[in-house]
């Protein structure tokens, strides 16, 4: 069966510090991968998606970036965090060519 992991689960970072969030999927190959952000009490905003290694599409211009160094690994990064980057970051995967997306447990990021 497939499993999706995210770490860390929670993170408190000062403004201006770098960020690296990791997402890995087990039990499948060549998945579509997605990064979402959810602000407190709000909906899900798609940040990046990837249909293959090295293929990243950005949905929202901002100071975040994403990379996919391996087939089942998706990384969200920032060089300098802003207060507005605080939120709940969710990674999701889907089988290539299939609609159903499955979400990870999320990372709660607080920028102070």
């Amino acid at each position: 069966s497939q499993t999706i992991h995210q770490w860390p689960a929670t993170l408190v970072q000062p403004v201006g510090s770098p960020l690296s969030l990791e997402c890995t999927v087990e039990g499948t190959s060549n998945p579509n991968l997605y990064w979402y952000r959810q602000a407190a009490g709000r909906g899900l905003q798609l940040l990046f998606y990837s249909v293959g290694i090295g293929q990243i599409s950005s949905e929202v211009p901002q100071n975040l970036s994403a990379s996919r160094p391996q087939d089942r690994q998706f990384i969200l990064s920032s060089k300098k965090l802003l207060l507005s980057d605080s939120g709940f970051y969710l990674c999701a995967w889907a089988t290539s060519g299939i609609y159903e997306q499955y979400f990870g447990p999320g990372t709660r990021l607080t920028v102070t």
Partner: protein
Amino acid sequence: QQQVKQSPQSLIVQKGGISIINCAYENTAFDYFPWYQQFPGKGPALLIAIRPDVSEKKEGRFTISFNKSAKQFSLHIMDSQPGDSATYFCAASGTSGTYKYIFGTGTRLKVLA
């Protein structure tokens, strides 16, 4: 045209009652409509989904009703239970090649015991 409008924002239902959440879309290219359930501090979980070639899909106590001509779909939770208290999100997808979702803004459901 890419928006999915969800209502109500919050909903309180008595135990055993029917919870109804509605979504509307504009883009007729959408062809997959899932519903997700999210508990506080957790990732959303896929609950049920429908394609536009059917008008209704039922899984246990959860039913999606789909009205293609009105471009609306709704989630019905029959015999609502306190354990159903969560935030529910509708979504729509249909962008070829990427299978991206457009999410609604969410409905916070509280079922009173």
